[in-house]
């Protein structure tokens, strides 16, 4: 694994705009193709194997939490525990998820966190970096995201009544989410599904079903909106009675909580792809990372240690913290890359790399393309 300088294409902004990837220059420059990461084939094999293994561990952890009735420990409100448990026991299908990994090409990939419910950066990983690969003539890329998403939608649709339409929802005034959801909607359309769009804020409840602005009842719902928020908002009370297939399914709420890191270490201690993690810092040495159970985009993460303390701001933490041993995040040219390893269904489907100038990957990080040979 190495970071290489790479000449940026002269017209990459226009080419991305044509793809619909409009936020390439957000926050001072989100997409960065003046560099790229090179992997060997064996390193990609290792990342693929680790992704599959972590998905296996994650599903085993969900099974454990449901069987042992530990949903409340994962901050699932009591009224929603039956919904979460039922969705797991009935095998409600998942579309995708993204493991964030620390990796340097020498040590085994280590799980930093699992973005299981509302992962973003998928348009960049699936489409933008693939265009970069084709136009720069690099040999190959770990990326079958687009094809696997289409195939996965077909699998999901096979369990729904014929002609089921999928409504896609995100919040208003958020360009990245709106673009992301339009891409996912396109993959569903390419799978042959009828699709529609409605902002989360515009949804209504007619007493029996959630409805869009035309009062058309939702028959399946993809929401880029976290379960922990849905459960705590006024319409949340209707989720159990709506009998609506929702992607991601309710059981993903157990995995999108960072408390899952402590549960994974409890169930699989000393696993080579996990870092020690606990609900208390007492079992860790001087170097550890304190993560709020429900924080997003690197908010309220703090590093404690002998070398230096780093802290990010944000509104999270009142819900509790998990304490994780500090990973030796490698620095390449002064940048700290995190590997976003995607699963579609239960299959490893590719990686995307975001790098930051600090060991905390935030919403100001840059996406850098990769290839392998």
């Amino acid at each position, binding site marked *: 694994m190495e970071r290489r300088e790479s000449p940026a294409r002269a017209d990459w902004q226009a080419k991305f705009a044509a793809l619909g990837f409009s936020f390439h220059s957000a926050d001072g420059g989100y997409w960065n193709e003046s560099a790229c990461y090179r992997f060997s084939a064996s390193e990609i094999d290792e990342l693929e194997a680790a992704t599959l293994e972590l998905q296996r561990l994650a599903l085993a952890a969900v099974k454990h939490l449901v069987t042992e009735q530990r949903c409340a420990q994962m901050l699932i409100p009591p009224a929603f525990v039956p919904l979460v448990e039922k969705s797991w026991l009935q095998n409600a299908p998942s579309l995708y998820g*993204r493991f964030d990994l620390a990796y340097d090409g020498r040590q085994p990939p280590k799980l930093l966190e699992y*973005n299981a*419910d*509302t*992962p*973003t*950066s998928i348009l960049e990983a699936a489409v933008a970096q693939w265009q970069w690969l084709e136009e720069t003539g690099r040999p190959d890329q770990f990326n079958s995201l687009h094809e696997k998403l289409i195939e996965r939608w077909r699998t999901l649709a096979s369990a729904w009544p014929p002609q089921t339409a999928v409504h896609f929802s*995100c*919040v*208003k005034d*958020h360009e*990245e*989410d709106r673009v*992301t959801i339009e891409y996912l909607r396109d993959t569903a359309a390419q799978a042959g599904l009828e699709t529609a769009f409605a*902002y*989360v*804020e*515009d*949804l*209504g*409840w*007619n*007493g*029996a079903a959630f*409805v869009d602005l035309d*009062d058309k009842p939702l028959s399946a719902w993809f929401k*880029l*909106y*976290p379960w922990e*928020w*849905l459960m*705590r*908002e*006024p*319409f*949340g*009370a*209707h989720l159990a009675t709506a009998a609506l297939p929702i992607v991601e399914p309710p059981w993903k709420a157990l995995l*999108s909580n960072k408390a899952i890191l402590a549960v994974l270490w409890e169930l699989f201690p000393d696993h080579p792809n996990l870092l020690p993690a606990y609900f208390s810092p007492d079992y860790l040495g001087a170097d550890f990372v304190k993560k709020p159970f429900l924080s*997003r*985009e690197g*908010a309220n993460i703090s590093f404690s240690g002998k070398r230096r303390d780093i802290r990010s701001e944000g*509104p*999270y933490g009142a819900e509790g913290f998990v304490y994780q041993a500090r990973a030796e995040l490698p620095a390449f040219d002064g940048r700290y890359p995190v590997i976003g390893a995607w699963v579609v269904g239960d299959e490893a489907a590719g990686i995307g790399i975001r790098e930051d100038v600090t060991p905390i990957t935030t*919403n100001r990080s840059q996406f850098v393309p990769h290839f392998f040979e």
Partner: protein
Amino acid sequence: MLGTVLIGACSDENIPKDRYVYKAQQECVQDWGESNCEPSRKSSGAGAAAAGALAGAYFFGPRFNQIVETPGGKHVWSGTPDRPAVNPQNGNYMGSKAMNVPTPRGGFGSSARATGSIGT
């Protein structure tokens, strides 16, 4: 055809605007109980002709912004068209099938306004 007739009647200015109005008795009773629902009737005086045309066509529930005793013996605020009451037994919005109450919206999204970032 039936739908067309009802939509046309729905815009009739003689339908009261100060109370819940339903197309079917069952829908009204489901929300408020029999004691709080009554069919539309003929009336005398101004507008009687038009009111006569409405007789029996609709069922009237409670007036808005009142305290109403439900069949379960609980007293609830009857709400307004913009803020319909919540059924204390099942958490549903009252009047969700009433003709003159718009579908309640905005029940999702408040957390995003409070925290900003959504995706991970």
